[in-house]
């Protein structure tokens, strides 16, 4: 009986060790891929190859959707930025809206950018008259 208890105790101790490690292995919060980090890295270096960066980001978003995981914070925004750089303003706005929906923390800043754009558009309109 005693040895059985000792055996159980040893099993439990082992289980604690194992689960102690397993508990730390939480699932990731977002769809993880190096592609997003690489796309940001290229952009921050002023790499002019927007087509390549757009491909990295659209693939990343598609893969996240397929995996049914949330894209990383800022991923929609970065894709929107790339679209605005290439003149696709409607798509840019679409992805900024997606960022704001996914992460309300971005709402203030995106609102600020929209205000700025309205102002500069008004200046341009004024210049035409």
């Amino acid at each position, binding site marked *: 009986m005693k040895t059985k208890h000792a055996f159980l105790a040893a099993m439990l101790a082992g289980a604690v060790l194992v689960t102690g*490690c397993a508990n*730390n*292995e*939480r*699932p*990731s*919060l*977002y769809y*993880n891929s*190096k592609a*997003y*980090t*690489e796309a*940001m*890295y290229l*952009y*921050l*270096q002023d790499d002019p190859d927007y087509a390549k960066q757009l491909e990295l980001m659209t693939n990343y978003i598609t893969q996240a959707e397929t995996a049914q995981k949330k894209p*990383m*914070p*800022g991923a929609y*925004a*970065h894709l929107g*930025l790339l679209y605005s750089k290439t003149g696709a303003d409607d798509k840019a706005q679409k992805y900024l809206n997606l*960022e704001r929906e996914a*992460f309300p*923390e*971005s*709402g*203030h*800043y995106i609102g*600020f*950018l929209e205000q700025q754009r309205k102002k500069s558009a008004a200046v341009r309109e004024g210049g035409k008259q």
Partner: protein
Amino acid sequence: MNVKHVTCLAAALTLLSGCAVNNPEPWDYAAFQKSAPRSILVMMPTSQASDVKAGPACLASSVQPLAEAGYYPMPVTMVYDTMRFNGVTEAGEMHQLPLPKLKEVFGADAVMYIDVEEYDTTYKVLDSVSKVKVKARLVDINTGADLWTNSFAVSNADSTPSSNPIAQLIGAVVKHVVNEAADVKFPLSRTNAWYLYTPGAIRPTPILAGPYHPQYGNDAILKKIEADRAAAAGQKAQ
């Protein structure tokens, strides 16, 4: 690298540093806990290194770990562009921007100031070693209070040199070529960022978990500090 890898690295590191760290004064997390930031404005890092990629690499690398730590890092590329568009082009100038102005534009809860202290490859006769060392400081955007600060370094120095001189030579040449040809410091900056911004990964002063993290408010480091304090108080009482 995924979260599992990081936690395993973190666990291994904890074992190591548990012995190495000579019980320094614990960081006071009171301001951090009180501030409880959700969103972090990560600024383009200043850099002491000659490689102009140092700032972009360490900034891009910070996003994923900070997100997995439970925070919302403000979109770093848009933020960088907004600053440049408004005439602030150098990282050093960006770090001087007044907090009320940053709050007005970005609406973040905290600001992360990063300084890349080392981002270099050292070439020796038969070897080359790349090293990335980063210091990060988190500041409350409303009060300017320091919430957290730490620095961390990683390198690709070979820790298990072969005793065979020919193998050594070949290994050194291969590594030299790799360090030369590939952008090895960028992957190092990613590894470095996972350590620096993963809750619990580096002792004695890890970053706390953010609101999206399941351990938010229950960081192991806070429990340990609490336990140490209680133990110290108990000793005094005796």
